[in-house]
């Protein structure tokens, strides 16, 4: 697994997860394999020479217009959809000559219903047809929009080109009126945009709960502008807080995971906050022998100790900071010893894993958990942050009738022993019924329900130590006790109970076995 390629993706998925968090629960943004390969290529070829004295920046076009009465300088396909395999509907994009803000034509988006057979949401990007534009002379992307009804569009922005997404910017949840309104997306720092290809991004799902109701919205006069009346930047990271976290030597992660935002005050007096890619920020580390941040915002932990990450955008200090207390190296999870023939593995370097749809379903609207599969020092683990609950969905239902146990290795960076209280749920969710076995771990202080499937096994009252792997073996109970139909287990859910203080988990060696 190539580490950089994966980490580069983090920002996109963070941006996208943020979108999902707010509105569209059915959306599964997935970027195409081609994109991923390009990312890999970029990562591999990123060992560039230093600029020589003779290097000169090419002079790229400076056109700000994107769509006035027709696309301006965009690629032939005009609109590049998110991956239909991830649920994006490619049918609803077009132009309209009868409804316009001004001039002959406007962009028309028919947002599908949540259960539309062609895909339950619509979204994509507009890409410059040339080598990219110099947008340093502008301070905002603006457009006019109206809806067939009042509705909320999950995301609009620019800087996403499905290649680098280096200067991606997203404005979430714009509210449409049934009359034309102007929308302004401030550029976090225009001096960075010397060659930008990502002219526009949008994503919209239907109204209400599943199956959401579709609607139509129109956009017109889409362009980069020099408004001159945008001011008072207030950039922030980690929600403006001074955050302190314990991490492991060798760990790598993106600052995009720490809520990077830029806020500008618009002429209307409204503070407009956008999600800004890490590359807009200049990060600095108080101790580069402990933590280093590169220009893409990737943090590498290179030594033990403590380092504080601070940042600025265009000379303006960023509110908030991240202090990293780096202990020793990330411990290797205990190596499983069972013969492969006795094991059905979900996630382990020791065995061949069964196929999964995901290790994090980003279930909306209640899930807060971020993260998923990561690699630390060559070790593949699942890392969940901001944890409340998370699910792994198997591609094909699994027959575990022959299995006696479910095994899981858990490591928490910091542990307050009395605060551990979790559930592990093995679920068979099919068209006719849902059955499950629920196993409590560590919980002693909270009330226990008597729901079918609940097991409060003393064996699982595990004692955890910070930064130490703990293997938990959960007996698979007879169906008569739990109700779980063992012939088609397809979901494994880990859940934090109530106010239990578990916020970050590392997980490895997730498998069923028979004794």
């Amino acid at each position, binding site marked *: 697994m190539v580490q950089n390629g994966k980490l580069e993706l983090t920002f996109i998925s963070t941006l996208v997860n943020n979108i999902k968090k707010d509105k569209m629960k059915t959306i599964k943004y997935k970027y195409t394999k081609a994109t991923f390969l390009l990312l890999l290529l970029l990562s591999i070829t990123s060992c560039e020479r230093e600029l020589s004295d003779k290097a000169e920046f090419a002079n790229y076009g400076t056109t700000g217009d994107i769509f006035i009465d027709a696309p301006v300088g965009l690629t032939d396909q005009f609109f590049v959809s998110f991956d239909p395999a991830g649920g994006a509907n490619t049918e609803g994009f077009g132009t309209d000559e009868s409804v316009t803000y001004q001039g002959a034509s406007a962009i028309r988006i028919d947002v599908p219903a949540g259960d539309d057979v062609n895909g339950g949401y619509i979204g994509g990007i507009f890409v410059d047809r040339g080598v990219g534009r110099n947008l340093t002379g502008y301070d905002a992307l603006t457009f006019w929009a109206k809806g067939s009804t009042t509705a909320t569009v999950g995301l609009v922005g620019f800087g996403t080109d499905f290649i680098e997404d280096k200067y991606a910017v997203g404005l979430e949840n714009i509210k449409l009126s049934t009359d034309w309104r102007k929308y302004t997306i401030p550029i976090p720092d225009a001096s960075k945009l010397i060659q930008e290809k990502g002219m526009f991004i949008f994503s919209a799902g239907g109204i209400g709960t599943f199956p959401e109701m579709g609607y139509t919205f129109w956009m017109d006069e889409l362009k980069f502008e*020099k*408004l*001159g*009346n*945008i*001011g*008072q930047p*207030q950039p922030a990271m980690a929600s403006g807080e001074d955050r302190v976290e314990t991490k492991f030597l060798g760990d790598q992660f993106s600052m995009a995971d720490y809520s990077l935002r830029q806020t500008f*005050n618009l*002429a*209307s*007096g409204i*503070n407009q906050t956008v999600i800004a890619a890490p590359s807009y920020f200049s990060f600095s580390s108080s101790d580069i022998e402990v933590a280093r941040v590169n220009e893409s915002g990737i943090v590498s932990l290179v030594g033990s100790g403590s380092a504080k990450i601070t940042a600025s955008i265009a000379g303006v200090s960023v509110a908030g900071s991240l202090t990293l207390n780096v202990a020793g190296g990330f411990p290797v999870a205990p190596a499983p010893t069972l013969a492969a023939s006795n094991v059905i593995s979900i996630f382990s370097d020791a065995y061949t894993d069964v196929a999964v749809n995901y290790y994090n379903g980003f279930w909306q609207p209640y899930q807060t958990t971020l993260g998923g599969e990561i690699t630390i020092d060559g070790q593949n683990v699942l890392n969940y942050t901001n944890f409340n609950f998370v699910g792994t969905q198997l591609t094909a239902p699994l027959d575990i009738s022959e299995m006696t146990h479910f095994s899981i290795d858990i490591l928490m960076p910091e542990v307050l022993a009395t605060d551990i209280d979790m559930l592990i749920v093995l679920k068979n969710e099919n068209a006719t019924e849902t059955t499950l076995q629920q196993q409590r771990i560590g919980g002693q202080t909270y009330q226990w329900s008597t729901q079918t499937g609940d097991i409060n096994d003393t064996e699982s009252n595990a004692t955890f130590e910070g930064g130490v792997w703990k293997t938990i073996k959960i007996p698979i109970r007879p169906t008569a006790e739990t109700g779980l139909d063992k012939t088609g287990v397809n979901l494994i859910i880990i859940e934090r109970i109530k106010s239990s203080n578990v916020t970050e988990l590392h997980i490895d060696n997730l498998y069923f076995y028979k004794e």
Partner: protein
Amino acid sequence: MDKNNKNSMRITTTLLKTLCVLVLLIAFSCNPDETQTVAEFKNLVLSDEFDTDDFIDSDIWTFDIGNGTNGWGNNEEQFYTKRTENVSVQNGTLIIKAIKEDYSGSDYTSSKILTKGLKEQAYGRFEARIQLPTGQGMWPAFWLLGANCGDGTADTEVWPNCGEIDIMEYRGQEPTVVHGSVHGPGYAAGNAITKTYALENDRFDTGFHVFGIEWTPEYINYYVDDVLYNQITRQQVEEKGTWVFDQPFYIIINLAVGGNFIGAPNEETVFPQTMLIDYVRVYNK
């Protein structure tokens, strides 16, 4: 023009005059097609350039201290002090700073300077170059009040009969808009004669702008930078009430927090906020 005051006005240097003409020329040159004449009064009779650090000229300025009656009549939330925390001169600029702090029963402190009893004049051109603060609840003003304002006894008149000329008022939550008004008998408070001016591609809280009036017995012209945006005539005023702008007025510059005109600060308002005054100048014909 009040003769007594005229004699006490500061004598200006030729250099300064030249500079002013230059500034005007530069200002005009931005809009070569505009034929309007913004300023006709060119005889500088008072100027404070705030050129000496830590010095506020007591021959020109005095202070209002406290939280006034009913928040200076507007339910304003600040307590005015003359502490250097709230008012100071640094790097050629007078700084009025609104601070969020518990102070004598108020939640905010700020400052209000005025030329009352020191520099008072009828008619003329009054202008100041100011960078305004930002955010919900910030209410800076550059204004004139009739020198005869009082409680109605002796030779005084109660407000609004003594007259008020607001050269610039601004709401921190509307960073591109300023207001110019007159208040008098028949046209006060909510019924004041007023006009707003909005910048198109700029804002008042990110750079300095010149705010001024030219006041004659017949009209008051309002301008921002090189744009004359309103003229209030004696005839207009007399359609609503009485023209009370023939007696000397004094200058007030203050930064209020909250109050009826703008509402209270909210959680997005950043403190402290500063109002920066580069200069104050008064001319006559």
